[in-house]
């Protein structure tokens, strides 16, 4: 495992008028690590992911992907540079089949110059890439099913698959288990375990059992700031973390 930093930010703040959603947050994630962001609702976890992926412009601070400053790079260029993300709410192309979803995900990265009149189903490379990712996220059996007709857990897999189409080196996952039924949680966790190979993962998740199991490190956030950072054991043992959770009365596990 290399020890270079895959993604980092320094002094990143996001203000909504007077409200400080993020206050001078600095993190760095080493290549190959799985790092979880936890904290009570409103702690700024999703805001941090939004700032990293470029969905929300940061008010101050700098964001680095590998050795490149991406603070001012628009969302679609960050995606092309190897930053993939999934969303808390399922964010896929509902009217398209799984195959069409994945094919579309590969399109911006695989073919820069394409004659517009060529039928998209004729692009063998796109299809092969879509099939390969479908296999990775276990969607091969529903390739030609419209995405809207899949179960929630499998739509999650489409969501994850879409994030993988650009061959990202860094994956930002926003509550990958949100809304997934108990029966499908193990499958989804296995999926995350599989796609983390060769990638760096920063995820936001409320399911503590899962977080403790799959993360190398955990960052605890509260009120837009970082409270502490450590291994699962260190975080569980820290009295401040308990207070933060118990104090807010919010413990989704």
């Amino acid at each position: 495992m290399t020890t270079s930093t895959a993604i980092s930010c320094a002094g990143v703040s996001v203000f909504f008028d007077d409200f400080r959603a993020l206050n001078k947050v600095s993190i760095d994630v080493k290549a190959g690590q799985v790092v979880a962001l936890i904290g009570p609702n409103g702690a700024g976890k999703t805001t941090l992911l939004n700032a990293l992926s470029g969905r929300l412009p940061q008010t101050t601070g700098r964001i680095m992907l590998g050795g490149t400053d991406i603070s001012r790079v628009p969302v679609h260029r960050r995606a092309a540079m190897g930053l993939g993300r999934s969303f808390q709410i399922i964010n896929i192309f509902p009217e398209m089949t799984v195959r069409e979803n994945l094919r579309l995900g590969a399109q911006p990265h695989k073919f820069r110059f394409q004659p517009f009149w060529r039928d998209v189903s004729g692009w063998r490379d796109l299809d092969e890439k879509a099939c390969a990712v479908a296999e990775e996220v276990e969607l091969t059996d529903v390739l030609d099913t419209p995405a809207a007709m899949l179960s929630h857990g499998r739509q999650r897999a489409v969501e994850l698959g879409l994030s993988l189409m650009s061959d990202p080196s860094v994956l930002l996952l926003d509550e990958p288990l949100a809304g997934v039924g108990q029966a499908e949680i193990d499958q989804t966790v296995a999926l995350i375990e599989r796609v983390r190979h060769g990638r760096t993962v920063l995820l936001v998740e409320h399911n503590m059992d899962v977080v403790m199991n799959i993360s190398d490190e955990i960052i605890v956030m509260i009120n837009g700031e970082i409270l502490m950072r450590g291994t699962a054991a260190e975080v569980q043992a820290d009295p401040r973390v308990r207070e933060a959770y118990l104090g807010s009365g919010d413990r989704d596990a």
Partner: protein
Amino acid sequence: MTRFWTRDFLIALGLCVLLLAAPLVTRNESVFFLLSLIVIWSIFALAFDFCFGRGGILSFGHAAFFALGAYGYTWATMDLGLGFGAGLAMAILCGAVFAVIVGLVGQRVTGLYFALLTLMLAQLLAIIMVTRLRRFTGGDDGIAGVPRPMFGGIDFFETVNFFWLIAAILLAVVVTMHVLNRSPLGQAIAGLKQNEERARQIGFNTARLRLAVLSISGAYSGLAGALLGALLMYVSPQLLSWKVSGDVLIMALLGGTGTLAGPILGVTLFELLKEVLSSYTEYWYGILGITFILCTIFLPKGVVSLLLGRDKSR
């Protein structure tokens, strides 16, 4: 998406063939004038729906692209003395360029706000063309004597011959749009409509995609405008009216958006109702309005849904 010959495409082709075959049944001049209007407005409605039904961009200002096409064709043929083909190219260019301008001005707004912006820009263009550019547009009087094509020794002042020409162009529009919709660009545009945020997050430059949608729609609209100018042999600021933008929206919704057959059916129904009703009552527009309301309630996906049924893949 897997089949090339979708039901929607086949119905659209069938409608084109029916139109092309009309001269075998009748040679009545006024019938052909009506059919010519249907053909030209079908091209315009398809152009509008490319923007609205495919790209998910609502516009209340498509009259501007349509009218600029008509004027562009007139300028190219009458002032510059160019031929029919070059005139059409000019019309396509005028429509596309103004659409890009609208897109650039509206880069930061979406949805209804963008639609209102298109209306505003179209009205602005109308005012400028009537007052400031009178030398080029003939002001409120318009320009008469817009030429029809001349080639191959065919007399296109003969209504039937001109009709055949424009019906063939409609067929070409249907085929090119179908190919375009199935192309990588078409898929990206479908993605833009279904989930703009996701499209951006997987690496599409959605601002540029929106410009692509608008310019393609503007180009086809310009083409339709040029053909209307040639049919009437006259262009006027009437073409720039907000009513033109409203009519094309109603036609597309009536027929069924996001399809190829829908806009053609919508135009046909609209023009036929107008023709029949206006001979009985001066309140035909009101009755048309009621028909439209009933359609949106009972056939929310347009008249075309009767033919497409529940076929998901269309």
